[in-house]
């Protein structure tokens, strides 16, 4: 989105414990600082609700992909078994509904799963060959990063930095500004 334009500026506070960063997210927001994102080496329960992220819409995508799979499978079976080459198996009607169920089920699950993975990769800008920008390399190891978008906050950098330190951010080095290209 911001490609070619000026890099966006973020303030990154580093924490050394899960509990500290969770507590900081809650407290910092109470002080009026808008938290952009938290990066951690492992998933943290409910961190999205503490940050205030809207709920994921991936279940809706899953339902739509699943329904697509169902319709695709039924169309495919109907074409194969009724239109292109009608076949009678076991004395049953070519479109005997119970026999359509296993294939329909599998197609539903397949399209649903593939679609969900694709949606997830696209919305998170991930995928083969993509290198995600990292605010701090240590968040893949043992540190937790609390990222504040400076454009979305009215407080000054110094004020935010002080608030972050007040709620447990590491002071050596203190929260620093990172430019995201």
């Amino acid at each position: 989105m911001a490609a070619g334009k000026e890099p966006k500026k973020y303030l990154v506070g580093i924490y050394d414990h899960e509990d500290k960063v969770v507590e900081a997210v809650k407290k910092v927001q109470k002080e009026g600082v808008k938290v952009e994102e938290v990066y951690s080496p492992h998933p943290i329960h409910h961190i999205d609700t503490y940050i205030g992220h809207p709920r994921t819409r991936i279940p809706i995508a899953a339902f739509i992909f699943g329904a697509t799979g169902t319709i695709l499978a039924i169309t495919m079976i109907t074409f194969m078994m009724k239109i292109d080459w009608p076949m009678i198996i076991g004395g049953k009607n070519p479109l005997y509904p119970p026999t359509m169920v296993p294939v329909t089920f599998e197609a539903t699950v397949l399209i649903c799963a593939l679609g969900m993975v694709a949606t997830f990769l696209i919305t998170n800008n991930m995928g083969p060959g993509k290198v995600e920008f990292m605010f701090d390399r240590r968040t893949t190891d043992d540190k937790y990063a609390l990222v504040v978008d400076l454009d979305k906050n009215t407080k000054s950098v110094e004020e935010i930095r002080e608030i972050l330190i007040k709620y447990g951010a590491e002071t050596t080095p203190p929260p620093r500004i990172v430019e995201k290209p």
Partner: protein
Amino acid sequence: MAEVHVHYDLNEKYTFTPELKKKLMIGMGVGLVLLILGVILAYAGIGFGHHEAHEAGKAAHEGAKHANTEHHGITPLTRLWANLWLNGVFFTYIAAMGVLFVAIQYVAYAGWSATIRRVAEAFGAFLPFTAIVLLITFFIAGHDLFHWTHHNLYEKGKPTYDPIIAGKAGFFFFPLEAGSFPLFWLFRLVAFIGIWYALYRLLIKNSVAEDYLTDKTDFSFHKRNITIGAIYVVFFGLSESVSAWDWIMSIDTHWYSTMFGWYVFASSWVSALSILTLAVVFLKEKGYLKMVNENHLHDLGKFMFAFSIFWTYIWFGQYMLQAYSNLPEEIEYWVARHDGLEGVYSPMIVMNLVINFLFPFLFLMTRDAKRKEIFLKIAAFGILMGHYLDFFVMVMPGTVKGYGGFFLIEIGTLMLFACAFVYVFATQLAKQGLIAKNHPMMEESLHHSI
């Protein structure tokens, strides 16, 4: 993270109010009256046997087919016995499944369910009552309900001799002579329910003893219950399957399905989960179980959703293979449920799939539906009715043939059993504290969040 202390009254006790007692008594009375009225009306020809005219023509048509099977007159009383048997079996399973829920929570070291464990524990108290109903019904009406009880099926040389059923004789009559007294079968009935109940009493004993612990770090009762729970899970897993063959599959003696045990399990397990959900929601509405929040309800909702689909999977797995292969000894079961027997049961089998699969699948799919009490109440009630219908379709075609239906007898028996179940359930629930307050994982349950 700073410690968050949640304060709830863990000493709360459920009181079985006289008003509820009175209501349930009235419910049982009305059920009994409806049932008797239903039998009387049925003898008068109302709500019973309106297929007779067709049956006569059909009987002649199928005369050759039924040459070696006896035709017994199906009277309104037969239908009453069939209903007693159906409800007896249904509620036996529900009671045993409640105990299974508790046992699984122990074996799985589950913490989230600590606050609702007592509710599930109260299910098992109904087991002795249904056992008595099953035994009485069998001794009075075993011959009407179970084709295999007729001794002339096992006498070689007679026209009524049935080699297929005679081959299964040992399963019923061992060690006695085929066609005499079904000792092995009755032994299993008594032993299964007896052992389920005995293990249940042990679970309850330790569970209640845990409440009076002075040393909160003493987990000995909990550990003992983990062992008992493991025994219950293994024993129940095996015996439930056999009991399903005994009590339901043997009605259609010729027919067999290798999936029947799971199928009955799936049906009754999801029913028990629905009753558990309903019980928890109703208790919350009455002001109990304040610590049970939408996260616990979400888990119960997920259970109902998942096992409704599990049931569909099993049901379909059983149905498709038999319908597709179309083997005579297998398909007769499904013919009776489709267009056979004048199609009495064909709407029910469609309803069965709609209520038990499509309805919970679409209704409980979203996260919000599983977290709201009103949605859960509707879903649980629907699933419960659906699985009663499922058991109905399992039992009725084999016992009352084309004379089945849903009228006063059915409503009366169901009301009688349901009210009796709630009565026993509430009595058991009121006996001890509503919360297993010294559960080692109580804190986890109080902070449960998904």
